[in-house]
């Protein structure tokens, strides 16, 4: 009678752990390349596409065999938290089976025992078994307690570098294991998932890149939303502030290449500073704001406003109403949510300028007193000039669209 799948895995977990021990302690030796593509879906969410290009060494294929035509391959460590829109595919976009976290735990358990035995042969089973079960079952909130328990074990048995390194990661995460039908050749497995921005923000995003330590070559690229550019793209060690790799400036598809050693003392990540292109909104908005500012400031400085109030000039009415129309044209919507968020303060500037123009025109049209006229037009001029200046400075700072450069 054929055994049930769970029984097969139970029986094979030790042998698979042997293969994992060899593969996971030399990740760059069999994972040729890892590519991460980050797509900014909105100001609150990104989608990360990861592809892992690898060849399982011939000497370890038999160890990873689960059945006649199935092999288990460790792809990554995933954090113990909910995954959103997770997909796993082969080169041809065919879906791939993966071990459930409780199935991967069977292998992880054996792997922990292997690493412990490599560090020391003095461990006492009655002490170790509950700790290993705790490591596998621990939630993120228990990580520090588990670390402390592993520390106490090290105090008793001496340094356990391999076991404690593995225990720390298996407390916080689990092994993502694909079940493949062929490992006799080079394979590419892809996975993708959505991630929220922990702190939604406008211009500078930091993307954690723990995968940069897990292959011989690591590439990351960012799909920037339309009407935006990545002003700078740097691989940075957050712990020291050291720039590990520099990407291109002012591009809509920045890419970076970096390979790091698996070093617990570094926290590499991709720091991307975004900017809205100047041509779509900022330049037209600055022009409109200056038209409004001049339309308010010139009459305030040189015209006899009380006389104009007595017989409102059609020219002024046309000028002010046309300003409002132009503002309406640039106060458009329908953009990428991140572009909308980035441009919100500048839209506010333009709206303020327009409101100042409408108020000044209104006071004139309703024959306001000369003092009220002077104050309204004076303040309106000031607000309009300030708004126009802000928009001009930001338009000058903003990146140009590719075709403008």
């Amino acid at each position: 009678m054929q055994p049930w799948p769970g029984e097969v895995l139970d029986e094979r977990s030790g042998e698979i752990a042997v293969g994992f021990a060899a593969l996971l302690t030399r990740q760059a030796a069999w994972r040729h390349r890892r590519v991460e593509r980050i797509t900014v879906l909105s100001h609150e969410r990104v989608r990360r596409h990861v592809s892992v290009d690898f060849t399982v060494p011939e000497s370890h294929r038999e160890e990873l065999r689960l059945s006649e035509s199935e092999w288990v391959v460790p792809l990554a460590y995933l954090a113990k938290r909910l995954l959103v829109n997770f997909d796993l595919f082969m080169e041809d976009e065919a879906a791939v089976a993966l071990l459930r976290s409780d199935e991967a735990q069977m292998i992880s358990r054996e792997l922990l025992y292997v690493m412990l035995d490599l560090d020391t042969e003095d461990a006492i089973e009655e002490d170790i078994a509950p700790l290993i079960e705790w490591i596998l079952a621990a939630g993120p909130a228990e990580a520090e307690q588990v670390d402390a328990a592993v520390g106490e074990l090290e105090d008793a048995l001496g340094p356990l570098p391999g076991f404690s390194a593995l225990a720390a990661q298996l407390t916080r995460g689990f092994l993502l294991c694909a079940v493949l039908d062929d490992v006799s050749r080079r394979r590419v497995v892809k996975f993708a998932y959505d991630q929220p921005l922990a702190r939604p923000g406008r211009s500078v995003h930091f993307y954690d890149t723990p995968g940069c330590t897990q292959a011989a070559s690591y590439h990351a690229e960012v799909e920037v939303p339309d009407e935006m550019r990545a002003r700078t793209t740097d691989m940075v060690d957050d712990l020291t502030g050291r720039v590990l790799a520099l990407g291109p400036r002012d591009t809509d598809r920045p890419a970076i290449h970096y390979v790091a050693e698996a070093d617990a003392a570094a926290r590499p990540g991709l720091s991307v500073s975004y900017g809205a292109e100047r041509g779509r909104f900022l330049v037209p908005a600055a022009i409109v704001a200056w038209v409004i500012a001049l339309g308010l400031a010139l009459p305030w400085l040189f015209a006899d406003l009380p006389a104009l109030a007595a017989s409102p000039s059609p020219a002024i009415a046309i000028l002010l109403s046309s300003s409002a129309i132009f503002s309406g044209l640039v106060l458009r919507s329908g953009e990428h949510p991140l572009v909308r968020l980035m441009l919100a303060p500048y839209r506010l500037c333009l709206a303020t300028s327009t409101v100042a123009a409408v108020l000044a025109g209104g006071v004139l049209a309703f024959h306001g007193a000369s003092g009220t006229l002077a104050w309204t037009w004076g303040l309106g001029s000031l607000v309009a000039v300030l708004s126009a200046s802000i928009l001009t400075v930001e338009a000058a700072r903003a990146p140009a669209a590719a075709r403008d450069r």
Partner: protein
Amino acid sequence: MSALRRIFRREPESLKGIRDRSAVVRSAEIAGPAFPRPVSGEEARAALERSRARRAAANGAA
């Protein structure tokens, strides 16, 4: 006000702690363990056999 803040902003002197000053996208992945040295298949198999023998002995004693 945020527009004015952006105009007069100063770039930080160091990128240290840039993660805390940015909108952060955590990875669903975590870094691989920093193992002290590579382990060969033979070493791992021998360790597994020793460990299983100890576990069997402990379970037998219990």
